[in-house]
């Protein structure tokens, strides 16, 4: 086929990528978007088989071999992995993509015709692809390890900032040196490759486990850029444009993720991801997991049964109206929402009744303790809003606790528990609550009214 025709077909692939990404960014169309992008990729691979070459030895057997092996492994891995392990998987996949760029760059360096001037765009391009691909490769592997747990967070480098800066200078210096040489020195290239891979490791290692999603997104954009670099080597449009688009999208996504965590891009890129105390504990200590408004909202929206446990904090925040609004928004989405009223929630008998009546929550939506506890196992999500003592499992488990013997709402029987409060401070009884460190629990810190209205907005958006 003519190269121009191929390029025209590649344009279609690119359009499919763009449309796919676009659709991926809306919940309703995301699944389709993913498929569209996949079709684009398939088309690109097929087209490439017909790409006109100087030296068409083709070697289709090798190609199909690679495709089949990779495809099988990828598919099985994706299907077998547990839902909770998906981010790790993405990170690993991403590393493999980076590795491919790296390999291509290395081979192309090796393939460079005798006497190619080193100081050329071509060499620059190859070095770029090599460098970025290597970082994406090893960085992703480290991120994977951290998320999966086989690499410990506590493995800390001394003065990571300085090490990273040093590594960067060395790698860039070596690259320049290679280009200034009169002719190719493949050994040096291999050294460069090695150093780049090490840099990938030192880049990610200092970063706390809680920030890994951001890092993965960043490394993903690196992979995209590396792919674009590899594309430049061949002047291949779909690689260049596809890679750049992923690079740009990944960068923006990284920024968005930082924003969602209330961190700045600067803090992330320069500040070396100095893990925020709260989210990155050191494995053995009790760790509090923080929830995000977005994820909570989507989880709520796609639940079947939700139980709201209001407490004194709901009253303090005067969040009863917003709470009712959220409840109605969820009901609109087909979620069954009820309230579990603990007899001593709040600070006076019937405190919660007063509040919820004010917000016009219909009486049949209120469940009493026993009823609520019966329904707990069939409940997908519990929203604990400014309650504390009334959901404290110590009352059941810890005979030494001052509240031992008080009946509580057994929220841990439900699928997921989200606790809305401002801090880790205790409630009326003045005691710590083990629920907050529970397997199923996530904390959504902030004033209850704020958090609820954000949740409501996100439920509307999602």
């Amino acid at each position, binding site marked *: 086929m003519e190269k121009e025709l191929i390029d025209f077909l590649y344009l279609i692939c690119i359009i499919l990528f763009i449309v796919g990404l676009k659709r991926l960014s809306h919940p309703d169309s995301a699944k389709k978007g993913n498929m569209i992008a996949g079709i684009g990729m398939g088309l690109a691979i097929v087209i490439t088989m017909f790409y006109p070459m100087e030296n068409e030895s083709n070697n289709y057997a090798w190609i199909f071999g690679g495709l089949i092996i990779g495809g099988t492994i990828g598919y099985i891995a994706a299907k077998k992995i547990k839902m909770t392990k998906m981010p790790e998987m993405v990170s690993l996949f991403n590393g493999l993509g980076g590795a491919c760029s790296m390999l291509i760059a290395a081979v192309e360096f090796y393939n460079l015709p005798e006497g190619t001037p080193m100081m050329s765009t071509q060499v620059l391009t190859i070095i770029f692809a090599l460098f970025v691909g290597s970082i994406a490769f090893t960085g992703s592997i480290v991120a994977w390890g951290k998320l999966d747990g086989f690499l410990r967070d506590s493995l800390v480098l001394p003065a990571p900032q300085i090490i990273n800066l040093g590594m960067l200078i060395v790698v860039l210096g070596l690259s320049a040196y290679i280009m200034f040489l009169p002719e190719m020195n493949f050994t040096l290239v291999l050294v460069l490759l090695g150093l780049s891979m090490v840099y990938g490791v030192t880049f990610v290692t200092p970063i706390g486990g809680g920030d890994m999603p951001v890092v993965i997104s960043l490394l993903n954009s690196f992979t995209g850029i590396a792919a674009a670099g590899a594309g430049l080597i061949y002047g291949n449009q779909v690689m260049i444009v596809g890679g750049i688009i992923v690079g740009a999208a990944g960068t923006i996504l990284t920024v968005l993720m930082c924003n969602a965590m209330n961190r700045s891009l600067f803090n992330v890129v320069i500040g070396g991801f100095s893990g925020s105390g709260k989210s990155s504990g050191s494995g053995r200590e009790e760790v509090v997991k923080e929830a995000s408004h977005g994820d909570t909202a989507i989880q709520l929206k796609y639940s079947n049964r939700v139980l709201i446990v209001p407490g004194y904090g709901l009253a303090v925040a005067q969040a009863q109206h917003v709470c009712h609004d959220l409840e109605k928004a969820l009901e609109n989405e087909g979620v069954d929402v009820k309230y579990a*009223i*603990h*007899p*001593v929630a709040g600070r006076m*008998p*019937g405190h*919660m*009744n*007063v509040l919820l*009546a004010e917000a*016009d929550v219909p*009486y049949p939506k*209120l469940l*009493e303790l026993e009823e609520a506890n019966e329904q707990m196992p069939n409940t997908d999500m519990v929203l604990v809003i400014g309650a504390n003592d009334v959901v404290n499992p110590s009352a059941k488990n810890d005979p030494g606790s001052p509240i031992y013997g008080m009946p509580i709402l057994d929220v841990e029987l439900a699928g997921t528990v989200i606790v809305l409060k401002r801090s880790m401070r205790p409630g009326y009884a003045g005691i710590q609550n083990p629920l907050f460190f529970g397997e199923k629990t996530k904390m959504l810190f902030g004033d209850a009214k704020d958090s609820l209205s954000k949740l409501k907005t996100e439920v509307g958006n999602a």
Partner: protein
Amino acid sequence: MKVGIINEKLDNRVAIVPDLVKRLIAEGNEVIAEKGCGASALFSDKVYEESGAVLESRADVLSSAELICSIMPLDKDDYKQLPTEAIVISSYQPYNSLVKTKEAADYKLTVFSMDMIPRITLAQAMDVLSSMASIAGYKAVILAANHLPKYFPMLTTAAGSIPPAKVLVMGAGVAGLQAVATAKRLGSVVQAFDTRTAAKEEVESLGAKFVEVEGATDDKAAGGYAVEQTEEYKQKQRQRIFDEAVKSDVIITTAQLRGKPAPILITKEMVEKMRNGSVIVDIASSTGGNCEITEDEKTVVKHGVTIIGNSELAADVPNHASQLFSKNVHNFIKIFLKDGKAEIDMENEILKSSCITSNGEILFGK
């Protein structure tokens, strides 16, 4: 014009409050008030004097006033002392009984009955039926809450849960709607009944539930007053009310039919089947009551149910009720009182409808 205020013999309210005295004087009138007229509505003689009223004995007020304002009709003793050209503004409720009207006619007085003012938009500011009914609706709920041996709102406490009280409001006119609103405020579960079709939307606009009985005769033409319903409808209605009533902790009835006895909505049988301690407040008691065994102006306990028959509940909120009544009176007076002079134009729709007797002739019903 000399405006007279008298002490109501049978009522806590007063027809003209001190604030209004000031206004009347500013508009060029004189005001003479019977000593102690405002006491039970918590307006002291001192305040009246400060407002510019001259305090006199009842006899003096009656004999010198040109315009007498009262809440309840005057009686024969009073008439004797009044000059015949005197104008009386009061509530004679001629639809319910013409006795008082006839007495006034005998003395050739000109009487405007505030309750006869037509319920047109323009006359809203003079509509004592509305302003008093509104207070009555509120008070009915407060009374019921006070008599009920239970809580109104729902309450979940360490010592167990208390379900909300069930309140049924019959007749969703001005009083009924206010009762609905007040009962809802207090946290009870409220249902309401009415035969007017518009009532459903109105009840729901207060967030309460409407108990629908199909087949009501519509009444758009009756200008806001209820009309008598068919027998079949009444039967259906009674069954539905029966079912709801026996489940209710409080029933407030306000259904009235102008010039007719109030419809019986709660039979003796229903009362017997109601839970012990339940409360019925019957605002329609003066025209016979909506409950079969209501006794007017009495609170009785029958079959374990407290039945309060009171059509003048507004008199139990005398301070605010007097304020609203005076404002109504003032808006009414303004129609014919210009610069301290009465200019009564009998072509005026409002004056024509509300003048029940003049010159010895009974104009009501003409």
